């Protein structure tokens, strides 16, 4: 079985992947731009790849997502970049230039690889995860933690606000969606 489909039986709290995808569609997103991430692979990327109403663009490196999303934005098309937190870190200069300095509504859904979902990202056992929220705050980027089903209701308003204000937003996925 592929690694992303092995269920984590230790985690008793669920995050409903289908409900996240429904919220993405509700937000008017037409394009998903993605490099695979083991956190979101089974619960989001695989079903999105089968979803006729979302066009999946598979990219080679995460900063490509930022440019593609910007080009789409000029055409009044909405996009979501589905990436891992390592890819976010690798793309910071692109996010700095395009999303922040040019005030583009770049929407990112970021899987927190190696995070313990029973702690906050700021207290994560992983250094790479611990620094994500402070970096987003230093860059002035709005962010929301999507860690359990009750958080899914944050997604559509956050994306709507990003486009209304022409500002970026980061949605942090704290555990593997089912």
């Amino acid at each position, binding site marked *: 079985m592929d690694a992303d489909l092995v269920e984590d039986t230790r985690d008793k709290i669920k995050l409903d992947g289908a409900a996240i995808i429904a919220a993405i569609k509700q937000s008017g997103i037409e*394009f998903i731009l993605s490099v695979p991430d083991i956190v979101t692979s089974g619960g989001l990327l695989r079903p999105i790849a089968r979803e006729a109403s979302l*066009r999946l*663009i*598979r*990219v*080679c*490196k995460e*900063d*490509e*997502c*930022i*440019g*593609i*999303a*910007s*080009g*789409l*934005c*000029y*055409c*009044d*098309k909405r*996009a979501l970049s589905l990436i891992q937190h390592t890819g976010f870190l690798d793309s910071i*200069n*692109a996010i*700095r*230039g*395009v*999303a922040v*300095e*040019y005030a583009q509504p770049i929407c990112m859904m970021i899987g927190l690889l190696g995070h313990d979902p029973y702690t906050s990202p700021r207290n994560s056992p992983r250094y790479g995860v611990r620094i994500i929220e402070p970096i987003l705050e230093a860059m002035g980027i709005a962010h929301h933690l999507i860690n359990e089903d009750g958080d899914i209701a944050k997604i559509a308003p956050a994306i709507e606000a990003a486009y209304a204000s022409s500002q970026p937003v980061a949605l942090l996925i704290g555990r593997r969606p089912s």
Partner: protein
Amino acid sequence: MMQRDECFRVLARHVGDAVVVSTYSSAFEWLDLGERALNYFSVGAMGLDSSHALGLALGRPDRRIICLQGDGSLLMNLGSLVTIAAAAPKNLVHFVVQNGTYEANGSHPLPSTGLDFAAMARSAGYAQVHDFSDLGNFTQQAAHVLNQTGPVFATLRVERSRDLTYDYPKIYDPARRKALKEALRD
């Protein structure tokens, strides 16, 4: 070997209402040929020009999108060749202006200058691939290249044309981004 400004003058005769994405030296040389709302300069980070062009091509399949990318820039985003070929936008024409230098950063040489970008694009899966080093041949073929079903890739082998003035506030003026967005809504 060609001059970049000569090549751009040839292209300018054929671009019509296409969106032209360019950065750094290519952007300043392109802008010298005239203002147009459909110029897209604000790519934010070196290398992303081809990715912005792909986004535009996907968002407006009814309109031709032209990318004028430097060779140093493309080297920072080589994976975009694969992404573009896989996404297969029929309306995208991707030029790489190959002069072997990071011209805007002091004209230092690239780590290697004998690269065959057309071969890379062909391997990635572009629908049409060209490699021009003669201005007469490019002049003859330019309209054909711009009208082919894409994604189209073309290398323009050039030498440094002349000293440029890098007026970044001018090309990154927010008014340009606003004008482009409005022009794309027409």
